[in-house]
Structure formats: C-alpha cells, structure tokens
C-alpha cells in the first residue's frame, strides 16, 4: 500500500497520487489558482482494477479504482506511442507500489508517481484524486 501521509489535513482528499511535475510541486502545495478539481464519475461507476477513460476538460484521463477508495488518475495517452490506451492496461503491483502496464508494449508505470520501471526515459503524467460525496474528482492544471 502506498498510504497517503502528507495530505492528512485535506479531509476530502482520500488518495494522493502525486502531482504533475512532482519535482517542483509538492503534494501539499497545490495552488487553487492554477488547478481545478474536476468531477469525473461516481466511485460506483468503476470496477476494481478495471481502468476506464474519462473525458475531462477535453483531456483523456485514465481512472483506476484499485481497492476501497484507493483511486489513481493518469494520462490516458501512452507515453511511448501517444495512443490513447492507458486505461486498458493491467493493474498490479511492483513491491509495494501500484502499477499499470501499457497495453501496447507493456512498459510498467508507477500509478502514483508516473515513473516507468522498464524504461527510465518515459514518464506517465499523474493527477491527484479525491472522493467528494461518492464522486471521484481529478485535479487538473488550468
């Protein structure tokens, strides 16, 4: 389990999945002026470990309900080929870290950080999620 720790003060944020450009943006330094929490779908709309794509502000986002309320959002676009397919990858784990494998060439990414285990040159964009009133919200940069 990649338990969220630093975000305890945000009661609504259930799972921290790291923010885009994690090197400059720490998890708790989200600026409400440059990002927006966009509702995607109900938690109940997702089947555990079965990824689905969502169309949010003209962006294609892949959503994964891993278990309970552990939810990850990443770019639906495969970093290697640019094809919009990531939601259709197999979810799993590497050690303690949650993963998704690209359905095209099977690169394996950390769902929380976007780091690629099989090819360090690739990065999958990740987005923070939270659950508000049974709805999954994804934090998108403006």
């Amino acid at each position, binding site marked *: 389990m990649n338990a969220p720790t630093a975000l305890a003060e945000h009661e609504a944020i259930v799972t921290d999945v790291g923010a885009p450009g994690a090197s400059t943006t720490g998890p708790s330094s989200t600026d409400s002026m440059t990002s927006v929490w966009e509702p995607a779908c109900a938690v109940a709309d997702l*089947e555990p470990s079965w990824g689905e794509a*969502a169309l949010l502000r003209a962006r294609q986002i892949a959503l994964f309900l891993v278990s309970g309320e552990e939810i990850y959002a990443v770019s639906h676009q495969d970093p290697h080929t640019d*094809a919009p*397919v990531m939601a*259709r990858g*197999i979810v*799993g*784990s590497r050690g303690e870290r949650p993963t998704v494998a690209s359905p*095209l060439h099977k690169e394996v990414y950390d769902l929380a950080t976007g780091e690629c285990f099989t090819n360090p040159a690739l990065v999958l964009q990740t987005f923070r999620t939270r659950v508000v009133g049974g709805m999954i919200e994804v934090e998108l940069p403006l």
Partner: protein
Amino acid sequence: MSENAIAPREVVIVGGGPAAHRLADALHSRDDERAVHVTVVSEEPHLPYDRVALSKRLDGTTDLTLEPTSVWDDDHVSLLLGERAESIDLEAGTVTTASGRAIGWDDLVFATGSSAPVPEIPGSELAKVYRTIDDVDWLVAEVDRLAVALGRPARVLVAGGGLLGLEAAGGLARRGADAAVVHSGSWLMSAQLDEGAGRALGRIISSQGIALHLGTRPRAIESDESGAVTRVVFSSGQSADVDIMIFAIGISPRDELAAAVGLELGPRGGVAIGTDCRSSHPRVWAIGEVASFDGRCTGLVAPANAMAEVVADRLLGGAAEFTTVDDATKLKLSGVDVASFGDALARTEHALEIVYADPARGLYQKLVMTDDAKTLLGGIFVGDASPYASLRPLLGSELSNEPAAYLSAAGMEPPAGDELPAEALVCACNNVAAGTVRDWVNGVHGDACTDLGELKACSRAGTQCGSCVPLVKKILESELSKSGIAVSRALCEHFALSRQELFESVRVTGLTSFDEIIGRFGTGRGCDVCKPVVGSILASQNDGYILDGGRGTLQDTNDRAMANMQKDGTYSVVPRIPGGEITPEKLGVIAAVATEYGLYTKITGGQRIDMFGARLDQLPEIWRRLVDAGFESGQAYGKALRNVKSCVGSTWCRYGVQDAVGMAVELELRYRGLRAPHKFKFGVSGCARECAEARGKDVGIIATEKGWNMYVGGNGGFQPAHAQLLVSDLDDETLIKYIDRYMMYYIRTADRLQRTARWMEEIEGGLEHVYDVVVNDSLGLADELEAAMAKHIDGYEDEWAATLADPERLRRFRSFVNAPNTPDPSVARVMERGQARPARADEVASERVVLSGPRIPIRGE
C-alpha cells in the same frame, strides 16, 4: 602455419557428406588468416546433407541440408556438386574428375564415406540400398506407387537389423508399407546390444507390426517376367513374399581411389590413418567412414566430426589428435527407445552387469561397471532410455551412488549431485564437453547464453542427433542457478510457482477468483505477467464468460476488448470462418459492415478476413451486425485456437484423397474458444501435396489413402519449426481422440507463452514422451484429458453473442465513463490505396488527416 603467406594452401576434399561439411566449416570458421582455400568434390547433386536423419525423409520431404550453409558462400570455399573424382596423381598433386577437370592440391582429404554393400546372391541386381537422399526418395515413390498399383500396402523386406535397417523399416512402416526385417544375428542390433536387450527391442519392433526373421539371411531374390521382385528365399529354407528388397547390412568404405594410388589400407578396407588422421602419404588425410582407425571403419557421425576437427586443426598448424571412437548410439524411431554406450557388451575383464529387465513392460536397462561396482564402463537401455543422456558423459568416472539407483525403470529418481567433470563429453556428435557448455552459459565466449535455443546454436551441443538436449538443458539450469540468474520457473514476483504448478494447484483447489488464488499461492496484487496466466488457466478449466466475476481485469490487451488492439488504440475484428469456407452471402455481410464503419480490410494468413480501425465503442454495434448474420467470434485476440487452415480437399481437387475442408470445419468447431498457454493453429491437407501447409501448424493433419497422418509441434513465427509425425493412418474418431489428449496435455504442462514447438523441445523425452502419453496412455491421463476437453466443448458459447445479450457486459465498451456516447476524438485516418489507415504523426501535424469519427465523410486528398 602456411608455408606460403601469400598464395593460400589448396585443400581438396573428395566427398560431400557430413564429414566433408564439418571439415569445410571448421576450416572456414577457424582460418582467420585466410591461409587455406578449400575445394569440395561431391558426386551427389545435393548440398551436403545430414545422412543420420535420412529416416526423417521417409516421413515427408524434409530438408536435410546441413547447417550452416553459409560456408558454401565463402569465396575461400568451392563446392563442386555432381562431380565425381575419378583419379588421383600423388606426384603432381592433382585430382581429376569425371568431366575431365584437374584440380591441384597441396593437401588432399578423403571423405568419400562408404557404400552400402549388397551380397552376391541370385537376383541381387534387383535389390536396393538405403544410403542417399535419392535412395530414400525412390523408396517413398515406389511404396506409394505399389500401394496404388497393387491395391494393398507394398511389402518391403529390409536385410539388416542394425540401426540403419531398423530406421528404414520403421520409417517405411509409418508410411504404410508392410515392413519386415531379416537379420543374421539371433537378436536385433547384435553388435550393440546383449541378448536380453536385443530381445526386448525385438518385442517392441514386432508390436509395431514389423515382422522379424532372425538368425537367417536372404539366399535368393525371385522375380516375375517383368523383373519385379516377388519373393525372397532365406538361408533357413523359409521364404517371404516381397515387393521391395533393401539391404542395410553395413557399410563398405569407398577406398578405391586410395587403393589405386597405393595408399595403405586397413585390414578390413578403408584408408589407414593414425591419430593425426594422416594416411601413409604425408599430404593425404582421411576422415569419416572411409578412414580406418585401429583397424576398423566406423559408420557414426561423432567420430567423423572429431576427425574433421583434427584435420582442420592440423591443416592450420595445430597438433590435435584423434584418440578414441565413441560408439554410443541412440536409435531414433518413434515409439522406440534404444541406446547403448561404452562397453555395452561387458567385454572388460571382471566387469559387473547391473540389469533391470521387465519383459512385460518391454523394458531392459543395464549398466556395466568395474569389478568394484564404482566406475561406469557402459550401458544399454531399451524401452526407456531416459538415463542415457546423463550417464553417457560419466563414462569412465566413478558414480557417486549405487549403480542401481541410476536405472529409471526400477522406479527410482536418478540421484542428483553428479557434477559432470569439465572434460566429460556432453554432445558426442559435435564433441562438446560439459566445460564448454558451461563456458557458453557463463558468457566466457561473449554474451552469456541463457536460453536453450541460444545455447545450442552457440555451443553446437545437441544440434545433430539431439539425444543430449535434456542434459544440455540440465547443465544450463544448474549453471544459471549457480550464478544467481533466476532459473526459478516462477511466473513473476507474485507467484513462485511455474505455470504448470499453478495450473495444477488451481485445478486441485477449484479456486475461481484471482484474489483467492493470489491469496493462497502468491503475494501482492499481481501484474501483467501473472494476471493473464491466471485468466487463461481459469478459462481453460472452467469456460464461462471471460470478463465476468472480476476476471475481466486479468485479461491481456486483446482479450480485454475481445478484439485486437492496433497501434493507435483502435481494434481489428476477425469473425470465425471455419476451415476458410464462406458463403458469398456472408462475404457480402463482411463487405457491408466494413463499408459502413470505414474499416480497412485485409485477408489474414489464416484464411480469414480482418477488419481494422474499429473504436472500442463501435465493437458492440459491429458485432451485433455480424452475430445477426450468423458469424461468431474468431478469437483472433485470444491465446486460443485461431483457425484450422485447409486446402479444398477431395471435394473439388483432382488429387485430394480425403475431405480436408469437412475435417477442418469439424475441428475448428470442436476446439473453438479453447484457451491455452499460447495461441495455436491447425491445418488440414487433403493429400500429401500439403497445400494447407499443415506441417507449419501446432497440429497438422495430412490425408493418406487410409486416413489421416497427425503431425504435432509445428510453428511459424520467428523460430519456425516443422511439425513432426506422431501417428499415421488414423480414422476420424481416433484422430480427434488423439488431438483432444495432445492439446489438453499441452495446456496442462506448458510454460507461459510457450507454443507447442518449444514445449515439445523442452519437455523431458520430447516427441517420444508425447507419443507415449497420447497414444499409449503411459501416464494414465487419457480419460481425464478427454473428459476435460469434452467439458470445454459442452461449455462453449460465442463470447460476442454472450456480450451482446447482457447490457452490463456492454458497459465495458464505452468510450468514456463520463461520456459514453462521445467517440474518441483523437482517431485520425488517411486514405491509401482506396482504404483508410491510421494517420502518422507528421500527417496529423500537417492536418492531412481526412477522416475521424465513425461516419464522417472522407475529405478527398
């Protein structure tokens, strides 16, 4: 070193068999300084081929050409085919060929091999021999011709109950001939086997329907007015009706050219050589069957290869020596396991013989030991030769356990821990020692060879007769585990079990969900390796809709959408077209669907039609049209039966002898939807012309006059393999029974993503083991395997029809969870040769894209 650094030394090899090939190849690969130019003079019209494997040619037109053939392309190697050397001039250093060509040499190598002798008896001019490709091709044609002309199987009598004779008789029997063997010894293979072993072998051979005439020999061959053989009379006074008489009673060295120029010959013929492989003339050498070493010529490939290596070394200035002849032999006949090595007949003084014999099971195993029962001197195996590969290299060394413990027939596990000494010979054919194999594994010679195929190619071990492959594999595994490379057959970090173990565990426990299975047998959350394996295992065992009950999340890319994902994330759709047979009306449906959805169409290699470019959310609509028109899923996306390819067969073809299309349709409908460790394909050909290319399939079925021949383990792909003959002349019912058993056994025991060809290579005992399991039911599994298949067949439902029938299932095909009716806006198409294809990145950038979305009209270019 060459005495002349500029002009290369001319080496002429007379003869174009395996010994000549080996020498030319050894010189080619070792002669870095280009000091030698080689000319091979061969009277046969074929590239040098593998004579050891001649019997394979009886099973079909197998290409026996010896690898590598690249040696013949080198400009330092000239190969003269169809040129017979007629005379030699030792003084002038020339060879003159039948066409009058004179070739100068600095060194001359005799590799003329031997001829098959035919005794001088009445009618001997009508007898044939079994020696060359042309001999075998003639035999095959004649056996087929006689079967038609006589309306019954041709009767073939083979004189000689040694290796060659038994292989010939076995191969001819498999081809449908009525084969018999006459042998002058009191038991078969009397030169290599003792009486107990020879009799055990005799029982096995007889049980294959081959008649044996032992302790006698042909005295006369009788014929009718037309000159056709009719009868053979034996020295015992008895006789047999015979159509074809073949002699395979030994070899006589082709030493006539050597004799003509006065070279010293061996006491029983052959060019006499010393340990340097040199004849009595300092510039003339001899290798292979024509070479007489220690007073005798040997008709085995291992010494021939060793001699070739010695001469290559000597010609390049080395001092290698040929010391002993390894007589080890293993008979390669389907369903027969025979091997002998070392002092098999216990001629050593005070030698002990440890024997296990079980006539009821047709088993005979013997080890010959020194008088203190410690050192291994030799052995014989009949009926079960599994200990042979690991014991033969231990010849001459002390065994660490009681000898009886090594006899597998006694039901014991062979003791582990006999680390082979580095110099122990693993591959006798190619003279590869255990140490050499280990060096290749450990990367001493460059990149480490960590898989069996690679290791065989690099070390050459196991590439000739193949009998040492299990041992090579064992060495590979023990070296890899020593160096810490995981040979563990574990699937991945989540499961320490191999696929086979997991399959059995799931079967025994009856678990049906991934969470239970990983909770019980693994750790973590799984991954893209183990999840599809579990998905496949559950599908093989339980049938049921593959995306229900949480199993959807286990499926690999294509299974998940029940379509094949293409590079841009859209899918291709392949309806099943059983046997490649389709009505014009159904073709019209495919055309209409493809037109409506703007799909690119292409004929597949498997006699089907593939429609490309469907978005995920379009798949249900497309399948609704197809299912309504009577199509069902072709499972082109599954590790499952793909298709059964067929030729048109006897229905239309003037050559066909069976209904190939009918059989193909029946098989495709029987095995459709069956999930396996990897995809698999069948082929059915209506006659021996094999237009369906069935031997490139996992199961290939080729019609004969009497039924069907079943071939197994064929494979296209990046490591192609020809399927091998499993059983001949089956009726429909038996054929299907054997396919049921074969496929289920494969599904249960293969590794992840291992196709049947690799599986048969890796499985202990190879083809013979599989034959035993499938035909002889040696594991007692036949009923269970057939029942498992019957369960699958009963439980089959079309996955797409099942999807369309359930709205919950259809939800999986929505484009976006929050906008299920919005098509993926990023799909972009360009027209090419009249059809739409995915736009390339540069075309997207330059806005040359002409089509996106389902029914958007195409903007002309």
